[in-house]
């Protein structure tokens, strides 16, 4: 193949795609809104943006594969630190497994809720079509009976003794609403009028929303949900907080070195830091009544102005870098064959 044997052509293709990657968002930004609207891009912008995200999302497997390969090899050949690698893999697969199970359960609940919602939605549709154009009312009656029976059996899956008091109240409310809907004349009569259908649709929507609340509440007590809570709240959050808190100790130790006053500038830095810290705690108010206000002023006026200047400088540098990156000026070595 010509392309495969021509490094220059490859470099050109890479540069071309780098440019094409940015052209959409750049054009969307610089073109007047009326033009964007007239060519129909505005209404499809979200879907198009999603397409760009999909390209990046495809790299997810790459990351996972690399982690599994690097640590899996260590475990299989029992190389140094293989136990840690095993912990990493257990964490990785455990998370994927538990989250998948929780997600599948949530999808099932969502499907069940949608089925119950359909009773009201279908009644509304028939009403909108003024009954005659739609399917016969008996189809709605049959469907409603079937779904209400199913919902009734699903809410009885867990014995009453295992329900919390809040869940018991929800269940009683839902059972009453289902019975009311079942007793509605619509489920037995065929000659139904528009007003009765509207009332039925309204009550069916109420049943669906109560059913949704009840099912969500039941999901919180499942083993999968508890495993997820254990993993997320018991391990991930705790480990994350501990990691950040650990840095707090090191920052406090670094403060000892940084706050040694040797020059006027370091004295200014120390004073600003001390005011900010004291202004945030109640002890600061004991030293000087206006400490919180002084802190606020320091943050809002000199700190904010200096930080804004830093951000503007960094922003201009970032802009230059972005332009160079987009036009492949920055990344010539990337698009060329050099290693």
């Amino acid at each position, binding site marked *: 193949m010509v392309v*495969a044997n021509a490094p220059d052509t490859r470099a050109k293709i890479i540069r071309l*795609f*780098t*440019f*094409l*990657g*940015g052209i959409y*968002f*750049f054009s969307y*930004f610089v073109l007047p809104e009326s033009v964007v609207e007239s060519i129909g891009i505005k209404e499809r912008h979200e879907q198009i943006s999603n*397409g760009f995200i*999909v*390209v*990046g*999302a*495809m790299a997810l497997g790459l990351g996972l594969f690399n982690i599994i390969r690097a640590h899996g090899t260590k475990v299989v050949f029992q190389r140094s630190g293989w136990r840690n690698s095993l*912990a990493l893999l*257990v*964490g990785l697969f*455990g*998370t*994927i497994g538990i989250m998948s199970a929780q997600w599948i359960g949530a999808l099932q609940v969502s499907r069940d809720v949608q089925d119950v919602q*359909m009773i009201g939605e*279908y009644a509304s*549709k028939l009403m909108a079509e003024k009954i005659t154009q*739609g*399917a016969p009312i008996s189809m*709605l009656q049959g469907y409603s009976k079937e779904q209400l029976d199913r919902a009734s059996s699903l809410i009885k899956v867990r014995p009453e003794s295992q329900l919390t008091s809040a869940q018991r109240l929800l269940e009683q409310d839902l059972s009453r609403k289902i019975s009311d809907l079942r007793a509605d004349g619509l489920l037995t009569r065929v000659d139904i009028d528009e007003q009765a259908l509207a009332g039925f649709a309204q009550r069916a929507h109420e049943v669906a929303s109560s059913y949704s609340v009840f099912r969500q509440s039941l999901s919180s007590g499942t083993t999968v949900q508890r495993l997820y809570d254990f993993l997320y709240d*018991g391990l991930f959050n*705790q*480990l994350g*907080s*501990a990691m*950040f*808190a650990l840095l*707090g100790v090191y*920052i406090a130790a670094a*403060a000892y070195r*940084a706050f040694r006053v040797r020059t*006027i500038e370091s004295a*200014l*830095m*120390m004073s600003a830091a001390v*005011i*900010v*810290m004291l202004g945030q705690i109640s002890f600061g108010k004991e030293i000087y009544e206006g400490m919180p206000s002084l802190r606020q002023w320091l943050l809002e*006026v000199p700190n*904010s*102005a*200096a930080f*804004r*200047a830093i951000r*503007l400088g960094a*922003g201009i540098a*970032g*802009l230059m870098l972005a332009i160079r*990156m*987009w036009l492949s000026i920055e*990344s010539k070595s990337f698009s060329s*064959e050099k290693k």
Partner: protein
Amino acid sequence: MDNGTMWELSSTLVGGIATLAIFSFLIRENGFYRFFEHLFIGIAAGLGPMLVIRDFLWPNILEPMLGYSMRMYPDGTPVKPYQPFYLLYLVPMAFGSLYYCIYSKRHAWLAKVVIGFTLGVSGALAIRGFFSEAIPQVASSFKPLVVFQNGVFSLFESLNNSLFVVTLLLVLNYFLFTFGRPGAVQGKIAPLGRPLLMVCFGAFFGSTVMARLALLVERVQFIVRDWVAAVGTLVGLG
């Protein structure tokens, strides 16, 4: 003890052990710390892709593309008809799968095509981000130097605004290396930006220390209150 309480207790116990393992790094790096560090990375590495798939790929791309989000009325008519344009997402999917060419020596350059594309997108987004974020900030930075509140001259606000604008200009000037400074006024006033920068850094340092210490206090409270109580419950003292 009911099932829910058991789960909460085990969650607290393991959370406490994990926290102590991380804090053991303060003594020196050790196997206990490294084990939990790896576990943390593993969980984080699993959470990331799952969240992307569950919250983005499935509901926005795969579900509508595969027609799983389609619902039918009992009479067989669709609530919302199938949108065939979702099939167009197969194009970015196929293009994105070029990332995997990185494992082939012969076709590795194709992975560079998709990496370059992503860099181009990031570049364009950064350009847009600069203009939509920085320009309003520039405009709002130039505050009125003489402030009247309800028709009365406000000395405090006027001084604050003046200090704000002067600080901004001096710090910007400090970072100006592009054209000749020595001898010029711009060069002479440049050192004035330094002390103002130091005040800014000091304020940042103070805020960071306070934020981190707040986390540390929360962790210590968790160990002293919750974890010790959970251990007590476990050994029958609670």
